[in-house]
């Protein structure tokens, strides 16, 4: 409420709300182009080739060309699909992916909707992605799509539990579910980030292994949430072609595609907020103005987007039983133990 510079400029009225709601949209659209280019160029770099070179200088206009191409594609609705559900599913994916941006604080003076339970909200809206995928996969009336959708749903709900525990541990440390509050508690440089146990005396050293474990659990889980390698079994092209979006083409496919990239940023932003101080500068108060904050925030989050792309072109794909083994038998107990330690520390602190 008080933490939004737009309201200071034009007052807290409907126009202000609309502008605030539109700003993340601008960001997402630009981000999606950058991420597509990043995926193309980083994959090329890892595989020692050049990647797109013809559109613009060194191919930087390639994502725009891709968008134009997708817009010009014919909108094919295959004959055997369940038309209403087939057409609704991409909208649910798209809207759900965008909804998560509502609570992400880009700086101490800008958060689209500073609700008090932001962390809980972000975790909850990921449910829309699951439903969108199952809806699209089932409606496609295609064996690959259905298999991909069921695998995706099973995988996403399985990995949500360790993720929830990791989020919960940080909420315990911060004593709040408000994103801004969580970030404010990590003020004062890199050592006070929740990755290093948050603020406190040197006695916090014993808790650092546990916060590191939770950080890793969240990161691994977020890869599964966004169906990225090594958890891209739902889209494993060698077995099930393209998974739940096999039958989709043109703009409807683009919406699934956009949702995936948008979710990549969301999970990276959450990991930044939870463990790496969000918009806090790593040097305490140095370079910590509102503009610097958004630069820090976006660069930290983009770093994790980069890591996700990097992993995609580096790691092989897991098998489905390995995937379930990892989440239910390894990550879940480890997450609870680490959570127990962190909660204990938060209580005695």
């Amino acid at each position: 409420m008080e933490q939004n510079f737009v309201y200071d400029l034009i007052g807290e009225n409907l126009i202000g709300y609309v502008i605030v709601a539109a700003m993340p949209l601008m960001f997402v659209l630009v981000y999606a182009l950058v991420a597509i280019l990043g995926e193309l160029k980083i994959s090329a770099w890892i595989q020692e080739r050049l990647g797109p070179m013809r559109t613009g200088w060194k191919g930087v206009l390639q994502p725009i060309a891709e968008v134009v191409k997708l817009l010009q594609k014919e909108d094919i609705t295959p004959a055997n699909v369940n038309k209403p559900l087939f057409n609704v599913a991409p909208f649910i994916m798209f809207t759900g992916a965008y909804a998560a941006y509502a609570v992400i604080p880009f700086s101490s003076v800008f958060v689209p909707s500073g609700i008090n339970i932001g962390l809980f909200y972000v975790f909850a809206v990921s449910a829309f992605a699951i439903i969108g995928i199952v809806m699209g996969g089932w409606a496609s009336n295609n064996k690959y799509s259905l298999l991909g959708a069921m695998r995706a749903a099973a995988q996403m709900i399985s990995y949500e539990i360790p993720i929830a525990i990791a989020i919960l541990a940080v909420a315990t440390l911060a004593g709040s579910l408000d994103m801004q509050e969580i970030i404010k508690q990590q003020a004062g440089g890199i050592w006070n980030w929740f990755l290093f146990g948050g603020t406190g005396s040197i006695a916090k050293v014993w808790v650092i292994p546990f916060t590191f474990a939770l950080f890793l659990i969240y990161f691994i889980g977020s890869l599964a949430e966004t169906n990225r390698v090594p958890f891209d079994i739902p889209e494993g092209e060698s077995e099930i072609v393209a998974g739940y979006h096999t039958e989709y083409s043109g703009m409807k496919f683009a919406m699934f595609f956009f949702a995936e990239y948008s979710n990549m940023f969301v999970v990276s932003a959450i990991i930044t907020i939870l463990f790496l101080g969000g918009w806090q500068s790593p040097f305490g108060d140095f370079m910590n103005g509102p503009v610097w904050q958004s630069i820090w925030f976006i660069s930290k989050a983009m770093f994790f987007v980069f890591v996700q792309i990097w992993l995609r072109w580096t790691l092989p794909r897991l098998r489905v039983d390995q995937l379930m083994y990892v989440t239910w038998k390894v990550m879940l107990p480890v997450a609870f133990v680490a959570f127990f330690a962190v909660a204990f520390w938060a209580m005695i602190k």
Partner: protein
Amino acid sequence: MALYDVIFYLFATIVLVSAGGVVFSRKMMYSAFSLLFTFFGVSGLYVLLSADFIAVTQIMVYVGGILVLIIFGVMLTTKITGVDIKSGTLGAFQMGIAGLASLAIAVFMIIMSMNTQWMQKDPLAETSTTVEAIGGLLFTEYLLAFGVAAILLLVAFIGAALIARRK
């Protein structure tokens, strides 16, 4: 304030239309996916009632959990081999009984809601969040209920495993 009325009627319409879809649709998958919008609309109504925690819980548990379970459940059914799974219709006699029972319940609910002293709350009143109050009460006054919930969850877990196990 007019804006909040607009939002209320928007969500109320979503709830009513989609709930109608759940009940009247002959295809089970349509009913299941229609529930998504019902849950979403109800959670919007919760927000208008300043029950933010309940609203998000609604999305998280019902959309993320129950709905996925329902869909997986539909996919387990035997009648699935048809193109679209359909629910059967009742005969005229059963329909009459069901209609009368529903009508009685509806009349009862309407009379009850007319005669209840509802707690009036200004939608613009300054409340930050309900999470803290819920947390405070749950672990002091309602600790026993919380314990019972734990047992209930355990029973659900074990029961589901027993029913679903293959061997």
